[in-house]
């Protein structure tokens, strides 16, 4: 395999250094990331991520599907925040169509999106802490995550691959008792965040492993395309939910946590504070949830109610046409970006006027964030690489697509 990678084929540099492979099956690489390290003793001289082990050609598959059939594919890109991906894709298609979405659907989208963010951050916090050696946090985080997965199951029938947002609205009306369940969770969750913070924030071992480790400056972070908490941890105050609002985010009040330090601890603090802000948004969404329909009034795009299909001829015809022929989308192109738990998730959808997307491209926040790794780790210890990988919160499904 020497030809595959110039680092791997390097004459281990000047007698002192050696090449070490970390991954693709290493537990701390969060999936199938392979990191090639050139090390001098315990010090990293060079580092290069090698990706593509999870490439499934989703962008190519999208071109062969109807617009509505792409929604389940978007779940599978980032399996820790499926609803964020659903949202980004349907917003892009709705912008292409010029569809207006009823307020209840928008608020439900915000509600579910924030729950997804909490879900994703909980997995990140648990696995990140476990990588560094604090195993307990993982068990605590997964206890709360279980509740959120149950909410996903309540609305969509699926714990992970939700496909709950559809072009034009939502798949289903949320079931009876759903809002009470979420409210009960939202009331007790802040105390749980205190619990995690008790285990980590003041913990001297945690501090030693994270403070001053894997530093990155704001200039480097911007130049390397970082976004989300990774960028805000370096002091750049941007959050697409607040600065370029979508799906009604402008109606919600929340703070955007920013830290100036740019190290692993700063990114940790940003994400933990985001947990608190997100639960605040969930509370607001519950309090102000409007009444009304959950689907846009666009019979050629949105599937009709089952009841109507049994009684009205037109509804049956529309249903048949949408399923068999899809719906045509006016030619054009749209780049829709949303703030995913990992950063700027963008969908670039090009339509040629037919019922299948001409091109769907996903801008992956993780792919860009992964490029920070060499800036963060070179000249530092191997153990810090593990902390750095955890702190940029990567999901390989999204990187490889």
């Amino acid at each position, binding site marked *: 395999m020497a030809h595959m990678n110039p680092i791997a084929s390097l004459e281990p540099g000047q007698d002192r250094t050696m090449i070490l492979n970390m991954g693709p099956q290493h537990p701390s690489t969060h999936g199938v990331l392979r990191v090639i390290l050139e090390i001098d003793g315990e010090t990293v001289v060079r580092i290069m991520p090698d990706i*593509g082990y999870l490439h499934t050609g989703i962008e190519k*598959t999208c071109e062969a599907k109807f617009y509505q059939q792409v929604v389940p594919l978007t779940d599978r890109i980032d399996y820790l925040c499926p609803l964020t991906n659903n949202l980004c894709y349907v917003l892009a298609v709705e912008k292409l169509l010029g569809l207006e979405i009823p307020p209840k659907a928008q608020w439900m989208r915000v509600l579910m999106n924030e729950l997804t963010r909490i879900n994703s951050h909980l997995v990140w916090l648990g696995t990140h802490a476990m990588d560094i050696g604090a195993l307990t946090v993982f068990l605590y985080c997964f206890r709360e995550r279980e509740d959120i997965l149950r909410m996903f199951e309540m609305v969509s029938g699926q714990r992970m691959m939700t496909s709950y947002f559809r072009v034009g609205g939502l798949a289903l009306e949320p079931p009876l008792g759903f809002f009470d369940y979420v409210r009960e969770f939202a009331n007790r969750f802040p105390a749980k965040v205190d619990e995690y913070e008790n285990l980590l924030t003041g913990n001297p071992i945690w501090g030693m492993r994270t403070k001053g480790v894997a530093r990155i400056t704001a200039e480097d972070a911007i130049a390397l395309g970082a976004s989300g908490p990774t960028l805000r941890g370096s002091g750049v105050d941007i959050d697409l939910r607040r600065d370029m609002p979508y799906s009604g985010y402008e109606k919600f009040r929340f703070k955007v946590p920013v830290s100036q330090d740019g190290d692993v601890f700063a990114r940790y603090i940003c994400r933990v504070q985001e947990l608190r802000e997100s639960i605040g948004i969930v509370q607001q969404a519950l309090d102000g949830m409007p009444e009304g329909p959950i689907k846009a009034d666009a019979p050629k795009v949105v599937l009709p109610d089952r009841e109507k299909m049994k009684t009205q001829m037109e509804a049956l015809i529309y249903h048949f046409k949408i399923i068999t022929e899809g719906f045509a989308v006016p030619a054009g192109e749209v780049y829709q970006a949303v703030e995913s738990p990992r950063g700027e998730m963008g969908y670039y959808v090009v339509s040629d006027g037919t019922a299948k997307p001409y091109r769907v491209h996903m801008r992956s926040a993780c792919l860009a964030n992964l490029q920070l790794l060499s800036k963060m780790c070179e000249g530092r210890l191997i153990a810090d690489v593990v902390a750095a990988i955890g702190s940029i919160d990567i999901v390989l499904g999204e990187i490889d*697509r």
Partner: protein
Amino acid sequence: MPLAPAITDLEQLREHPALARLLAASVAVEGAKFDRDEMTIYVYRSSIRDACVLLRDDPGCPFNFLSDVTCVDWYPQEPRFEVVYHLLSIPKKERVRLKVRLNSGSPAVESVTPLWPAANFFEREVYDLFGVRFNGHPYLRRLLMPEDWEGHPLRKDYPVEGYR
């Protein structure tokens, strides 16, 4: 909410800050489009790097963040490839899209990796999946597909099921 028709007349769009900046510096602009609240500027292949430097260092509205680089294959039309750059201005919260059209011969364009290291992986991905070369890229190799893969899977003449 009916769709407003796209504006493609360069004269009408002259006021847009990003376009005005490029025209003022007499960068060769091929055309522009304003559609669905999104601005697209078509730049000639030779001037993409100049255009990017100008927009990145614009004091009024610096498009300092490269969101994305990707490509669209319009096979069998010519020019066949459109390389698409999405820029974001973090201070002004504005976006602009730059496009370069390339013929099918041996498509190549100047790399913007020297301007934004972020483009490194994006351009490698485009090279891998479309076969568009980026001149001046420090490490232009396949990113997602295996090193010994033949063909470029996201081209439109590449079958969805692959070759068997």
